[in-house]
């Protein structure tokens, strides 16, 4: 996989995620953030377990970000 950004970063937007390629689709970004927030804030799984799963997944997929 290449190491150079494959897309230009969007201009404007608040926060690092909005200034990432996801910011090119602000509606889907907002919808994703709602889903993600529900997962973390209203879930039945202990957040510590979620965090471990998130990091394990990042490592498995070699996602350094």
């Amino acid at each position, binding site marked *: 996989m290449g190491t150079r950004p*494959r897309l230009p970063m969007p201009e404007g937007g608040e926060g690092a995620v909005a200034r990432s390629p996801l910011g090119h*689709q602000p*509606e889907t970004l907002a*919808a994703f953030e709602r889903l993600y927030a*529900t997962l973390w804030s*209203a879930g039945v799984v202990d957040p510590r377990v979620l965090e471990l799963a998130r990091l394990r997944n990042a490592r498995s997929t070699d996602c350094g970000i």
Partner: protein
Amino acid sequence: MQARESTKRATRGLDAVFGLRADLYRDYRQFYGLFYERALIPLDLLELVRLAVADVLCCTSELAIRFDHAGVPLVDEQRVQAAIGQADEAALGVGERACLDFARQFVFDVHGVTDSGFGAVRDHLGVAGSVALTEALALFDGFMRFRKLLGVPPIGDGAVPAHVEMPSTGSETLP
């Protein structure tokens, strides 16, 4: 009381499983529905990609679904068969094939996506469109694995694809 509630629960499709977490499922439907309602990439391409991912993952409950718009299939069956390797790819355009190659590689091994492969997608869909396709792939890939892992039952008998109106942000159910 509990028994009566359980009889109301959906027994087929995504509702049967994801419906157990109503709040998450609501947010998921709104997210998923955006790709269709806003046609963030051409709807026929979205359908081809969805089915190509289902084919790679051997996700039978997903492969048994065909989305329609106002009663008309998003894609004719010949092009569906081309996208899942059962018919000549000549039925597909060059840009569509680039997007399907990208989709399959995304599922197989995302590290194998090359700059030229992604470049062909960007050339076909533009910057915003290529972001939308990649997001849609993340949804398709992740939730087809969800379907398989949790045994989501197909909505029909599985032998013949079931035609369902395409999702929207207001969808209260998904197949």
